[in-house]
């Protein structure tokens, strides 16, 4: 598979000479999802850093993707998006750029969350897990372009930002579906996220969107927050007893 070959090529040549064959065989044994790709990218960085520091007194301590990183990114992303919403409603006085920066950073963190929390989902539904990651990734990029565009060409770029944001919502809805189906994390939180991701679309058709949007935003943010908390709780060190 091309993706597997591309991932192995991220590692240094000497590493590939030693581990390349067995590593490729391992990647072929089960579907590779966003979590695995993020973990392999970090693993390749670690291998390159180690090679560079081979004769140093201390070698790099290792970097890896984990449910914990995904969970922390989900909580931070939800918090930043909540802050962006409060600031844009005028509840805090800031410069015009602040809500946009908070919003974009929040969306980027949710992408990290999607990768970090998708390990189990990708085994059961690899295609759905990949679509759930790729769609909001494109949406976030378009949203950033829209925000930058608004500062350059003015309100015209608002439409670009708006469609980028809707795409990010579609991705969150897909992640909610795949998480609910696999029961990899809290199903209640996945349900909340799903409702929060779909409700804003109802706001496009009802006469008064202010009825729909506040609960939608609340469900969306609380859903991500709770998924993050659950991921962190699952990622307890093995030396700490698990809840009975």
């Amino acid at each position, binding site marked *: 598979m091309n993706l597997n070959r591309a991932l192995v090529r991220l590692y240094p040549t000497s590493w590939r000479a030693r581990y390349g064959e067995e590593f490729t065989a*391992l990647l072929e044994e089960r579907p590779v999802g966003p979590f695995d790709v993020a*973990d392999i990218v*970090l693993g390749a960085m*670690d291998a390159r850093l*180690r090679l560079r520091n081979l004769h140093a007194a201390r070698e790099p301590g290792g970097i890896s*993707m984990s449910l914990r990183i995904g969970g922390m990114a989900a909580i931070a992303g939800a918090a930043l998006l909540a802050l962006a919403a409060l600031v844009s409603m005028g509840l805090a006085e800031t410069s015009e750029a602040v809500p946009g920066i908070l919003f974009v950073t929040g969306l980027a963190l949710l992408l990290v969350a999607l990768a970090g929390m998708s390990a189990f989902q990708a085994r059961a539904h690899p295609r759905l897990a990949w679509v759930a990651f790729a769609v909001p990734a494109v949406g976030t990029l378009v949203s950033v372009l829209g925000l930058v565009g608004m500062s350059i060409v003015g309100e015209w770029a608002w439409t670009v930002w708006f469609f980028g944001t809707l795409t990010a919502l579609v991705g969150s809805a897909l992640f909610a579906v795949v998480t609910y189906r696999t029961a990899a994390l809290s199903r209640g939180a996945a349900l909340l996220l799903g409702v929060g991701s779909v409700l804003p679309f109802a706001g496009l058709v009802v006469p008064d969107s202010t009825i729909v949007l506040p609960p939608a935003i609340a469900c969306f943010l609380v859903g991500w927050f709770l998924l993050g908390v659950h991921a962190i709780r699952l990622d307890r060190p*093995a030396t700490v007893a698990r809840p009975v």
Partner: protein
Amino acid sequence: MQTKLPEFGRLAEPTLLILVSLSDGPKHGYAMMQDIEAGTGRPMGAGTLYAALARLEERGLIEPLPPVDRRRPYQLTAVGATNLAEQLRGLSEFAQMGLRQLGDSQP
């Protein structure tokens, strides 16, 4: 040769989990990942697994066996088994001390 956990930095736990997984016999990477996920309920990515395997092999705690169908099994060395036993004993003593103290403070 004695290797304490902190030397592995952030890979301390993955290396311990791999040593425990290999404690009942040689395993290849995929079997170790399945074993660790079943035991901890958490995923271990292939990047983390091989970063930890490379360090363990370098320190002589595990050794590779000839590959079978491109999959290479690994096994604990005598040093690795001793090191694992030390680590587990240390954890066990720490847990017992904690339980004793907890018992002492309970009414």
